């Protein structure tokens, strides 16, 4: 049947018809297809141009960026004692090594999986630039504002460590990967301890971006496993577990975050057992963020669990997998993959919600932006726009980066295609 001769039927071209779009045609089709559309295009174009020009003027000409330059350290760490900054640099170096080695291992595993599935494992330059784009923008802005050579040299050192860590991670033999992962987690714990313990700086003296990142990353890392456990608990066959998880979730989802932060600030200490050391305020706020976020994560994950067809569970049961392995190996991976967009939405939301600690008197990034305008040199001169634009950039870079990485993760796990 599959004769090499010409196929029967009418002759057809070997390639699909070519569709060329010239710039002129694109403009005509998309922007000037009718008189009313042309008018709209014109108006929108003018508005856009006006906005761009005024923002550009502000950025380059009228903006007085000296307030950022003078207060860069304040933005980064708030009231962190200046004599102890070395601890932060050491911690940053350790965390960079931990994170980049893990990233290198992940990258190597992804490449191996690609090779096993007969796909091209190489990453294009374009992809690399896109991934590194947002952090590089931030780095560039920071470098513009740094006035002394020491932070620049230290930053360069951290970057070198990061590149080195990534390379080491990529080349690490497969059998060491598990141990390297555990090592990375330990290194991060050691780094955090190095900042606050052994004569270090109590968390209550932390501020600025340091505090914002600590709250965001800390709550996400803790809230995620707790949320997954709550979601599974809410579907448990044991009524007590089910009810307990349900009450927990509904309570924390039903309370305003601000109210919960007040509870953590003022009321939580009274509920602790007598003689139990009261945790510092930052830790109490972190606990509140974790509880609040885990309730939301739980409901997102529960939605994911419900999206898995019953046949998947039946197939796992029929193979003789234990109930825990049915969940861990078959149901949960698919459920989590399906809710990546919602989970990242929650992460971004939490990142921005950390600004609320302002009302319990903590000076995180946004609070710094307000406070520095009250300094003697700047008070009453309307510097608020400059500081807000600067912290907006930092929030935007973080949110956009999370969003981009989640899109990459979705693509890698093949959401919607497999």
């Amino acid at each position: 049947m599959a004769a090499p001769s010409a196929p029967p039927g009418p002759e057809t071209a070997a390639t699909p018809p070519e569709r060329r779009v010239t710039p002129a045609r694109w403009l005509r089709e998309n922007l000037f297809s009718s008189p009313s559309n042309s008018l709209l295009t014109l108006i929108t174009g003018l508005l856009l141009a006006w906005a761009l020009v005024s923002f550009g003027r502000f950025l380059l000409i009228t903006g007085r960026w000296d307030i950022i330059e003078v207060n860069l350290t304040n933005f980064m760490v708030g009231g962190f004692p200046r004599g102890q900054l070395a601890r932060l640099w050491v911690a940053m170096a350790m965390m960079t090594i931990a994170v980049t080695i893990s990233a290198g291992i992940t990258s190597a595993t992804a490449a191996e999986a690609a090779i096993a599935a007969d796909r091209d494992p190489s990453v294009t330059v374009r992809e690399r630039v896109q991934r590194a784009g947002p952090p590089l923008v931030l780095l560039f802005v920071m470098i513009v504002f740094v006035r002394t050579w020491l932070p620049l040299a230290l930053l360069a050192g951290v970057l070198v460590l990061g590149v080195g860590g990534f390379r080491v991670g990529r080349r690490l033999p497969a059998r060491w990967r598990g141990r390297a992962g555990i090592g990375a987690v330990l290194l991060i714990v050691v780094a955090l301890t190095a900042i606050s313990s052994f004569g270090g700086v109590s968390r209550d003296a932390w501020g600025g971006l340091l505090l914002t990142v600590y709250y965001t990353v800390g709550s996400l890392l803790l809230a995620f496993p707790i949320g997954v456990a709550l979601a599974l608990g809410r579907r448990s066959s044991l009524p007590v577990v089910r009810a307990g998880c349900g009450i927990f979730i509904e309570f924390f989802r039903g309370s305003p975050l601000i109210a919960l932060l007040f509870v953590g600030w003022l009321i939580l200490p009274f509920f602790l057992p007598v003689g139990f050391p009261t945790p510092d305020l930052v830790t109490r706020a972190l606990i509140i963020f974790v509880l609040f976020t885990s309730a939301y994560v739980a409901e997102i994950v529960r939605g994911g669990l419900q999206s898995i067809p019953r046949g998947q569970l039946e197939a796992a049961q029929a193979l003789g997998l234990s109930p825990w392995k049915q969940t861990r190996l078959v149901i949960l991976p698919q459920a989590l993959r399906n809710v990546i967009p919602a989970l990242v939405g929650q992460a971004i939301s939490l990142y921005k919600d950390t600004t609320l600690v302002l009302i319990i008197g903590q000076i995180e990034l946004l609070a710094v932006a307000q406070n520095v305008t009250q300094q003697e040199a700047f008070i009453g001169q309307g510097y608020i726009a400059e500081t807000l634009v600067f912290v907006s950039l930092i929030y935007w870079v973080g949110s956009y980066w999370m969003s981009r990485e989640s899109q990459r993760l979705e693509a890698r796990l093949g959401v919607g295609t497999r």
Partner: protein
Amino acid sequence: MQDGTLTGKARSPGGTGKVMIELHRVEKWFDDFQALKAVDLQVGFRETVVVCGPSGSGKSTLIRCINRLEEHDRGRIVVDGTPVSDDLRDIQEIRRETGMVFQSFNLFPHLTILENITLAPMHVRHRPRKEAAAHAMELLERVQIPDQANKYPGQLSGGQQQRAAIARALAMEPKVMLFDEPTSALDPEMIKEVLDVMEELAESGMTMICVTHEMGFARHVADRVVFMAEGSIVEVNTPEALFTDPQEERTKLFLSQIL
């Protein structure tokens, strides 16, 4: 109603006479609807039994009770000496020894075909990865899709997916295979490739219960055919006897409608 066990004993296929699966007066209710009414059936070691009947007659429920995907309400089910009971250890024991193939394949979409097949051997039987993978490749050769090993289920045709699902069930080296309408979701040209695999499996001496509408397969491969209607076993006989000389009116009616 004819007693299924009588004809079962009258013909003991495989020549061993050993009973692999025994159902005794099994009943199953879905709320007020009785899906199985006092079903008696014995399946011999290495026997291939085809279960047919109109939709809603309880065929799928019957085989799903055997590996406890459904819980039966009354009666007794014994698989290779192990009773199907509330005891989780008994259920796990039976599920390890019983492979099941579903109408909608139910391959795990987040795993490659090879990972689908090695999952249970590695995590239930604790086989080393290499050994499980080597065995999986043998099974993929057997169902004739070795070149699909590293693809994901979504990249395969329906027929290939179902053959992969059969390989996944076989990877646990089961003593019994249950087929729940394995070809009903397939395009006509893919049905044959799945039936060929099932026929080869039956010839190799696997004990099989197949719920299917493929009468050609039943006639050709089955040792016995069970005809069910409205939750009861109406008639059990060799394919030849059942198709050419049905005893019950209900069977005659069904056969006249589908043949």
